[in-house]
């Protein structure tokens, strides 16, 4: 498996590994650490991995073990049923569908409202950073975000009505 193939498959599997780790650990940041350790372990075994299916299976096994180890480190007094956790399937998530819908509705907003929403939620910027980036005042930003929320609510309502 080449480096490019490895990177492509790992980025494809990252949401699944993150969800699995979050399901076991319960903390997104600790789950992200477990995923990174899993990627390092997979990189060391890269020579033995030939197919993407093997990589997916191996990544899930490793991320579960790492997550259990992480829980044992953070909560040593907590009794963990490791065998059952190892057998649990990762939770299904419709994140991609929800994101596509959200992006579709956000793209219909006016430019200032769209930029403010994407900066605040997708890019994870704070209000102060958005004020500096856009040059808007705090009051103006609040007003813009409020109008954007109202427009999105109406758009969601309209979208629901359109569904069969």
């Amino acid at each position: 498996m080449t480096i490019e193939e490895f990177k492509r498959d790992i980025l494809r599997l990252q949401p699944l590994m993150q969800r699995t780790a979050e399901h076991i650990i319960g903390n997104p940041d600790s789950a992200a650490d477990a995923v990174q350790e899993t990627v390092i372990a997979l990189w060391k075994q890269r020579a033995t991995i030939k197919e993407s299916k093997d990589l997916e299976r191996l990544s899930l096994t490793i991320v579960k073990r790492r997550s259990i180890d992480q829980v044992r480190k953070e909560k040593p007094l907590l009794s963990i049923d490791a065998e059952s956790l190892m057998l649990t399937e990762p939770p299904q998530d419709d994140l991609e569908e929800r994101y596509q819908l959200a992006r579709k509705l956000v793209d219909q907003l006016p430019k200032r409202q769209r930029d403010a929403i994407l900066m605040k939620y997708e890019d994870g910027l704070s209000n102060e950073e958005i004020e500096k980036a856009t040059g808007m005042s705090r009051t103006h930003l609040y007003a813009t975000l409020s109008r954007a929320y109202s427009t999105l609510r109406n758009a969601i309502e309209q979208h629901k009505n359109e569904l069969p």
Partner: protein
Amino acid sequence: MKEEKERNDDLKQLLDALEEHGRNAKRQQQLSDLIDQLAAQEKTVEVPRNRRKLVPLWWAMGAAAACLLLWLLAKPTTKQIPEMEEKNLVEVEKVEATDSIKIEEKDVVIVKPVVKEELLAEEMPAIPQKTPTMVRKPKMKVVEEKPEEPILAEVILTEPAKSTDTENIGSNTIPAVNETPADNQKPQRRVIRSLNLVCYECQKDPEYEFATKPNMDNKTLFGQPQDPNMKNGSLAFELKLH
């Protein structure tokens, strides 16, 4: 009121999806950087293993080649330094002068080639000169044609005494008293021996008198009994005089 809450929940889910997607994008970017870093580390660790043996060798070879090139560029040549050329010319002239004198001493008759050699020394560049073999050959031929006769001694005797070096040599080429018949059979050797007997100081100072050979028939220079089988005792004494 309930509808308003549902609408807010829907909006929250929508914004959460945006937020989660943004976080995942950041994490994927971090993972991508991590993989690139791992790949770079792998390259830095593995690639030098193959070249580790060669890299120092190439450095040494490059340094040696650079030093050699610098030395070749900085090396002074005779073309670059005219003083050296002149110095070499002077040295050649000196060599030629001494050679010509030797020729005069050995070949008593030939005097003109001295002038030719000097001219050559003035005109020729700084090239190591060979011994004048061209002058020696005719002399050797003459000697070989008449090996039994002391040709040079006779020629010198026919000429009157003059104030040149060659005449002094001629005057001293008279056969010595203690010369053996074997010396007469080898005129070349006689000439050489006669030349050896001539002292340079003697030529400058006409009042110089040769030291008489002490008669030490059966004793060495140090008074010890002479080995009867030893025949070059007199020759050793001559060397001592010089």
